[in-house]
């Protein structure tokens, strides 16, 4: 080789390429970079037992892989035997004396190698991006941890907001939005295991009688107290799968799952009306607070929309009002 320039002392080679390896064709190791030596101390006594080929289909012998890569000018992959998931990668050239100079690097296994061999930044050549990769890895983890924390916080806040958005603050019952949601689910969700259809239910629309007079004569505080008490009566009446909502002023709606028998519904309505009459403020003297009720019984074969169903319950409620209040009509 006429144009050979580099005639490097071994120390200089070690400084310049801390991950290098010089070896002859028989696999005798002539020089090892200090970082590579830290990582694979056994290399001092040869390749055997230290490195194997890192690519399938080439045979396991490291020296064959190295020769192949050097002579064909292709990339070299070497697996470190005692850290089996660490594959070093690099390339190599022939020196003027016929020996091979190989320079290796870590690739994505960097962090693991650093842990394993306790490497410091002094072990890397300045041209190596190792520090930048580590920096990025740590920065990434920090940001992701913080973001996921923030995400959880957001999800919790959203849940609270959602609940608040569906709750009537006065009574603690659901509001109109909650009712609309519950009604459309009740009409769609196949909760009946036997028929795989939605369970039938009674939609109960209730309006207080003489509520306006409570407000006018006794003040809004008395009105609010009454609504709150009605709320607790309803809360006590409904079961786990039922829904109770205040959808405006003194209007309440119940969804009672599985209630399809008009006689049973009549009993429930009677009891409800009696309970509400008991809440009537005595100061009202000549009048008595009561409730008018309209009921629609829904089964899966009915085709009305939820809105239409509510209108029908409302119409049944007005029938009760016309009949003289304090009673229930099944529409």
């Amino acid at each position: 080789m006429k144009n050979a320039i580099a005639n490097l002392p071994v120390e200089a080679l070690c400084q310049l390429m801390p991950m290098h390896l010089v070896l002859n064709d028989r696999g005798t190791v002539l020089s090892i970079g200090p970082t590579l030596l830290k990582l694979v101390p056994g290399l001092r006594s040869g390749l055997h037992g230290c490195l194997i080929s890192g690519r399938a289909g080439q045979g396991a012998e490291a020296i064959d892989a190295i020769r192949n890569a050097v002579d064909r000018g292709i990339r070299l992959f070497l697996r470190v035997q005692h850290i089996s998931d660490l594959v070093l990668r690099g390339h190599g050239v022939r020196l003027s004396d016929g020996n091979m100079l190989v320079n290796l690097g870590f690739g994505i296994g960097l962090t693991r190698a650093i842990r394993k061999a306790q490497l410091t930044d002094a072990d890397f050549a300045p041209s190596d991006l190792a520090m930048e990769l580590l920096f990025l890895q740590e920065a990434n983890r920090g940001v992701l941890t913080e973001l996921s924390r923030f995400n959880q916080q957001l999800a919790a806040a959203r849940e609270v907001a959602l609940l608040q958005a569906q709750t009537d603050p006065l009574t603690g019952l659901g509001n109109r939005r909650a009712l609309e949601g519950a009604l459309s689910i009740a009409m769609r969700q196949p909760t009946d295991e036997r028929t795989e259809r939605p369970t039938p239910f009674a939609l109960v629309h209730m309006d207080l009688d003489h509520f306006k007079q409570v407000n006018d004569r006794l003040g809004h505080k008395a009105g609010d107290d009454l609504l709150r008490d009605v709320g607790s009566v309803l809360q006590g009446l409904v079961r786990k799968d039922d829904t109770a909502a205040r959808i405006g002023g003194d209007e309440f709606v119940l969804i009672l799952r599985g209630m399809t028998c008009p006689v049973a519904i009549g009993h429930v309505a009677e009891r409800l009306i009696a309970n509400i009459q008991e809440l009537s403020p005595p100061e009202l003297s000549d009048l008595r607070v009561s409730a008018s009720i309209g009921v629609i019984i829904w089964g899966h074969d009915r085709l009305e929309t939820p809105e239409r169903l509510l209108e029908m319950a409302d119409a049944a409620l007005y029938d009760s009002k016309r009949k003289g209040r304090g009673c229930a009509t099944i529409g």
Partner: protein
Amino acid sequence: MNSLINRGIEEFLRSTYGDALVASVVDDAAVARGAVAPLGAGFGAESLQRAAFRMAKPHSEMLEDLGAWMTRIEPVRRLLRFSGRDFRDFLLRLEELPGRAQLVLPSLKVPRLQVDAKDHAFWVVLLDPEPTWKSVLAGVIRGMADDYGALCLISVEDTVIRIEVWDEQFAEGRLFSIQCGAAEAGQA
């Protein structure tokens, strides 16, 4: 990204001045913005101004304290230590800081920096003058001088931060290894 910064500011105020100040800053912000504010919105950059006002401190001093506080947060300290083997090296490589910040949070606009050095003195010049960053950066430099154990004098001028390094090993600096500790790794 705003949420990260807001949270950083919140943590800074909470750990430095306590819950009471944080609560009053949040109140001030709620009054200024109305009830429906986005989560953590009380802790934008203006909250530092409110806190400074309440603590009767100049705003720039508050920003410097924030910068110095950041260097005491272990993950941040580690990231900063990646850019220098000693304090001088750290100062000289501050020019890389905007690039590094870009890698971590692309939307964080750290102004371009140029570092000049002569004998014991270093000048960090903000190429895009920005008073907020200037103060925060001065705080970061102050905090990292402590971290490396370097004795220095830091003065903030118009668009320049001037650092005179008197003794690099004035005190024992804190340890730094490029390996992330096992405990920390476990947390992530």
